[in-house]
């Protein structure tokens, strides 16, 4: 598969950019990092984009990140220790002018405490066009979804491997931007072996929605990402980048690894039963157009 990214407009809207790129046959890479985790985190976000990420997901750190594993817990504590606040990070995002759409991932108490409208407005003002709040399931999320929609922010909902079919369909109907498919039952973090649930969830949800379906949690290597995107529209990769950043990686190194993921998913074969629309459109473009090499 190719990455005809040059055919895509310059919009920074998460929903339209992901949909256009998906429709052009490009596999999607959503790259996560925790806002404020290191002084140069904004450079890291640029590097992830330069390496070929289609969107950047910035974590607004929370004191009690219950769906995150040790790496992102660590990053959250580092960020909080450095005095990171939602408002301060949104301000940094606004000034960063990141090349691709930016989504925010955070826990509900930070949204609730700010107020739905105020938080959605602050996100929109910072140019953030997507929001993932993993501890806010379908039943509790209606007021936040309405506030986000009114501000032009796509409220992304999650589906888990254990989510029953009808419920998954309803979540897909209510999600905006993309559907975040949890690749496994567990917290964020790297896994040596890709869970079998991660391999099937993409095509399962592809039959329920025409939103892009991105699989996250436990997608740790370019090889795993390639495997996942043979059935899904894209991947969300977080802990692999965050661990490197904690360990002192340079922006150049981060860009190279992002490019490794990019070229791996560019080579993914579409699964035979991947029903999500548009793959055929993207046959243009020849060999992977990831412009940054694979390091």
């Amino acid at each position, binding site marked *: 598969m190719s990455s005809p990214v040059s055919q895509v407009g310059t919009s920074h809207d998460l929903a339209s950019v992901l949909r256009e790129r998906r429709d052009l046959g490009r596999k999607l890479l959503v790259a996560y990092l925790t806002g404020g985790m290191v002084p140069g985190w904004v450079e890291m976000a640029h590097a992830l984009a330069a390496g070929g990420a289609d969107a950047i997901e910035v974590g607004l750190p*929370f*004191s*009690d*990140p*219950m*769906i995150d*594993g*040790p790496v992102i*817990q*660590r990053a959250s*504590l580092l960020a*909080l220790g450095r005095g990171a*606040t*939602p*408002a301060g990070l949104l301000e940094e995002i606004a000034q960063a002018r990141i090349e691709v759409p930016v989504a925010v991932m955070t826990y*509900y*108490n*930070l949204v*609730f*405490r*700010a107020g739905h409208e105020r938080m959605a407005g602050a996100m929109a003002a910072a140019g953030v066009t997507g929001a993932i709040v*993993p*501890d*806010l*399931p*379908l*039943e*509790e999320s209606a007021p936040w979804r309405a506030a986000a929609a009114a501000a032009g922010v796509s409220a992304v*909902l*999650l*589906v*888990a*491997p*254990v*989510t*029953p079919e009808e*419920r998954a369909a309803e*979540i897909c109907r209510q999600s905006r931007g993309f559907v975040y498919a*949890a690749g496994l*039952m*567990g*917290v964020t973090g790297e896994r040596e072996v890709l869970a079998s649930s991660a391999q099937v969830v993409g095509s399962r949800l592809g039959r329920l929605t025409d939103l892009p379906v991105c699989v996250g949690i436990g997608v740790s290597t370019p090889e795993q990402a390639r495997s996942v995107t043979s059935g899904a529209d894209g991947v969300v990769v977080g802990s692999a980048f965050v661990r490197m950043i904690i360990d002192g990686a340079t922006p150049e190194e981060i860009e190279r690894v992002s490019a490794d993921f990019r070229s791996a998913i560019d080579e993914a074969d579409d699964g035979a039963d991947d029903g999500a629309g548009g793959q055929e459109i993207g046959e243009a473009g020849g060999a992977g157009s990831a412009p940054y090499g694979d390091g």
Partner: protein
Amino acid sequence: MTAVMGEPSQAGYFGSFGGRFVPEALVPACMELEAAFSAAWADAGFHAELDLLLGSYGGRPTPVTECRRLSERLGIRVLLKREDLAHTGSHKLNNVVGQALLARRMGKQRLIAETGAGQHGVATATAAALFGMGCVVFMGGLDMERQALNVFRMELLGAEVRPVEVGSRTLKDAVNEALREWVATVDSTHYCLGSVMGPHPYPWMVRELQRVVGDEARAQCRELLGGSDPDWVVACVGGGSNAAGTFAGFAGSGAALVGVEAAGGAALSHGAPGVVHGMYSYLLQDEVGQISEAHSISAGLDYPGVGPEHAHLAASGRARYDFATDEEVLAAFRMLAETEGIIPALEPAHALAWVVRNAGTTIPEGACVLVTLSGRGDKDVAQVRDILRGPAGQLGDGQAGQLGEVRSVRPAEQEPAPRAEQER
């Protein structure tokens, strides 16, 4: 009277508090648990089995004790509901036996739990041993130091105690870690939550499993008081399970209900509404919503939140909530030991401290007060000794030898007042 302390709404709300704020991965498990508990609680067979176990194994009913010397000292009539006399030394077993029975009904072979003081962990380990189930207890590293004896107790009972070394290394971090483990093992594992907190159905289920405390106490009081109820019913509140169970028995009575938090963990007095650990309730938090750490002399009350039904009872005015300071608690702890020959746990010593402070003022002279003595003080004796007398190093040779083994796994005992050493 409308259903004070009745069932929550279908979405798990008591008034505006409660709900189910969990990752999607846990929603089906919460739904399954809700259905299983609803069915079990409507099943006479389940009740019969539970009652049999709570009686023949758990030591129920626990008595209500009339405190003659304490009453004389305070000028009011004090009754104690003696959960300290239940097996494992606290009310925690009521909840755990119920949840273990339920887990077995649901085909789950493994229990996980969080614990602060260790009492809920010990109770869960006990039930797991009784039912032949696997058991992992998550406990903050700091709490493991403060409550080393309970760690050893859990291990003796066959449980694995997993230290939680992130964040404040206390109860709130242990809850996070237990939830994380549950997400990964929900197929085979029941999360045996220890208080009336967390996502629906836990606040409701745990209150129902603890209402035996209040139901028994009400009948026992009526017998003692010639058919009437006490004027006041007072219980300590960490997450709020012993208080919720007690209040459930008296919600329809005329008694004034009082919940007493620790001064350093007083979510209802010092907190604001918010969401953590799956529930919408009052929480200690900063202005952007980061959860604060609680600090008190009692690990069991070191929790920055409170069960959502208590938030509702406070909002509706049916119960009132206050807090007690560490100093008041120590004084009450000693007073009960000296006047009644009962060494309470530090948690219910908060409830006693409130009664001592308010006797003759808010509580009029001669009024009758029921206090739920939620647990016995054995687990706290070493800590209180260190606070009152300085570190254990002062002990003579013979005693030091006796305590040596325990001390080797209890580094915090080197500190005169470990609670005061915590960093924010």
